């Protein structure tokens, strides 16, 4: 089973700051997904990356997939309190179920 390590575990920043969170594995990802989970809710899919070196942007969020497909990062520009939540990366291989990391808990303070 592929293990996903996310860092940092916790992050508390002021509104307007930039931040980057990471997802790493010793194995190659076939694809990787990023989710955001707010308190009392289920995870919501933000993006899926498939190709090594791929960069995807979603408003102020930039997702990057490593060239070797063993790591990924999520960068948030000018963070807002609405970005607060648990950011999870998840991977699957073929028809296997999603395997999640433990997540990065982000708190953006106004």
């Amino acid at each position, binding site marked *: 089973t592929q293990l996903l390590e*996310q860092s940092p575990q916790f992050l508390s920043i002021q509104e307007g700051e930039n931040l980057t969170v990471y997802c790493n594995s010793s194995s190659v990802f076939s694809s990787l997904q990023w989710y955001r989970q707010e308190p009392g809710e289920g995870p919501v899919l933000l993006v899926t990356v498939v190709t090594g070196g791929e960069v995807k942007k979603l408003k102020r969020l930039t997702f990057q997939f490593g060239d070797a497909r063993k790591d990924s990062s999520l960068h948030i520009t000018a963070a807002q309190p609405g970005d607060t939540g648990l950011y*999870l990366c998840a991977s699957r291989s073929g028809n296997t179920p*999603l395997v999640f990391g433990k997540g990065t808990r982000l708190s953006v303070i106004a």
Partner: protein
Amino acid sequence: DAGVTQSPTHLIKTRGQQVTLRCSPKSGHDTVSWYQQALGQGPQFIFQYYEEEERQRGNFPDRFSGHQFPNYSSELNVNALLLGDSALYLCASSLVGTGNVFFGSGTRLTVV
């Protein structure tokens, strides 16, 4: 179009009791997966149902069982509850052959 719905939203049970959680998948979806999310952890896969059969199973004991009905809805049953079973139980639905998975808001189970 309703998304994935789960019931109940919260539940408190005593050690040794049994519990049943319910999930209705997103319209058009035929596959239901269940995850357990302990406090401070990412979701862990319990099992997946497709065509009313358990297709894949994670590393969970036989106390965890499930069922899928002809209308694709699903139940998760946990017997002989332990304190460590306290968690958020998430249901996720998808359409076989596609990659997008949609999660419900979960059932928060507390075992006392």
